């Protein structure tokens, strides 16, 4: 397991060549950088991730890992799946074993690893996601947030270089979101590059190193402050400007925020504001 660069170029993806979901989309996930894939519902975020994971074969275009193109042969897919893992949005569609530990062991067992190694990997994945206390529980007794994290653990046990997460925070309350983000930070330290799709622009702004917006069947990628500050692009993508950028830009005009990059969330905005009234920096 080590960070790898996953990329797609010229991707045409869809069921109908006349009306593809993505048409000429390109995306690069630089090794070790956090990428947020943004887009409205139905824009093609999930399709893009499925294509990058190898689950969906593009009608045209190439997916590469560290420059090496993915071949959609049995062996090619097998190799790809050990490097790139996708976790889908609905955890119920990924948990199919009786108990949490059993479910997480599914992937490593299929890799043909010896039992001891599997056991170690399961324990590691559960610990990384902070769900080790649930190991013996039946999957159907878990809460939604717990099921989501166990589903991620199932992919993590495969030790992927790149982990693609489809809407990992959708439907979670703030504390569950915080726990999920903490788990993702641990995964990065464990040398997995993390990509998440979301339509939460505020979350993307505060989490991501890079942002890719899926819009009009293509992908626009760039630095979060640039992409999420582009009102024209966001309107086309049916997204909103993150509040922190809107409010931060105005406060800078008012002379209340220093130069440099704008704060990305409430805490850093508050920290950047002057302490006393009437003393613009």
């Amino acid at each position, binding site marked *: 397991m080590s960070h790898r660069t996953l990329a797609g170029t010229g991707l045409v993806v869809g069921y109908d060549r006349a009306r593809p979901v993505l048409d000429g989309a390109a995306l690069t996930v630089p090794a070790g950088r956090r990428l947020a894939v943004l887009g409205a519902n139905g824009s093609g975020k999930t399709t893009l991730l499925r294509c990058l994971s190898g689950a969906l074969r593009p009608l045209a275009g190439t997916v590469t890992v560290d420059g090496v193109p993915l071949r959609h042969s049995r062996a090619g897919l097998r190799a790809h799946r050990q490097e790139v893992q996708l976790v889908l949005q609905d955890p119920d569609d990924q948990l*199919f*074993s*009786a*108990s949490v530990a059993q479910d997480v062991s599914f992937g490593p067992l299929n890799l043909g690893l010896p039992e001891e190694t599997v056991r170690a990997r399961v324990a590691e994945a559960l610990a990384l996601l902070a769900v080790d206390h649930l190991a013996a529980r*039946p999957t*159907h007794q878990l809460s939604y947030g717990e099921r989501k994290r166990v589903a991620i653990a199932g992919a993590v046990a495969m030790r992927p270089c790149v982990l693609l997460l489809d809407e990992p925070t959708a439907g979670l309350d703030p504390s569950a979101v915080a726990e999920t983000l903490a788990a993702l930070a641990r995964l990065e330290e464990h040398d997995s590059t993390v990509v998440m799709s979301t339509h939460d622009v505020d979350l993307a702004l505060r989490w991501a190193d890079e942002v890719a917006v899926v819009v009009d069947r293509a992908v626009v990628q760039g630095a979060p402050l640039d992409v999420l500050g582009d009102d024209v692009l966001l309107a086309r993508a049916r997204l909103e400007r993150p509040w922190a950028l809107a409010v931060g830009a105005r406060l800078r005009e008012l002379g209340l925020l220093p130069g440099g990059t704008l704060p990305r969330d409430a805490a850093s905005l508050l920290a950047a504001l002057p302490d006393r009234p009437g003393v613009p920096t």
Partner: protein
Amino acid sequence: MHIAEGFLPPAHAIGWTVAAAPFVVHGARAVVREVRENPESTLLLGAAGAFTFVLSAIKLPSVTGSSSHPTGTGAGAILFRPPVMALLGTVVLLFQALLLAHGGLTTLGANAVAFAVVGPWTGYGAYRLTRALGAGLLPGVFVGTVVADLATYVTTSLQLALAFPDASGGIPAAVAKFLGVFALTQIPLAIGEGLLGVLLFRALTANARPELERLGLLRPAPEAAP
């Protein structure tokens, strides 16, 4: 192995429809009674039918590299009982004809006899017999699903043989012919379906024990020590 639309001569199509009718009507009566007593069982029965349809959409790999689909008649009969399966199986066959172009409307009766009557009843009988002989749930399921699949295929072969007797050997030779040709695909498939049935019920005993107990397939377990 659904008999395609237009394949059977009209007299045979009508004959098999008449043969299937009493079983399907019996199943319909059972369903109507059940729904009258518990209106919400409409949803459970609908879910059972949808599951049977979806079960037959599962791709089973075969050693030869090609893949095939289970009939679902045996597992359905063990889970939902043959009378109800006579109706649900016929509904599923109607949907397969209209949504997947598997089977047909005038051949619905013939297919119902094979898939919704003979398959489920013999499979269920084999399951009960195996259990009565002292076997556990999983061996019973294996025998039941394999027998149901084979019985379905033998019935279809008989139906075809009756419609198209051999020019020189008559019906017995035709039966041998159809059995022989379809055996190539059906015998591995029957064993595959038996394996799938065992794996399905094994997973259910781990995941859904209370449901299996309610269906009467498992005895309620003694209270586990805390």
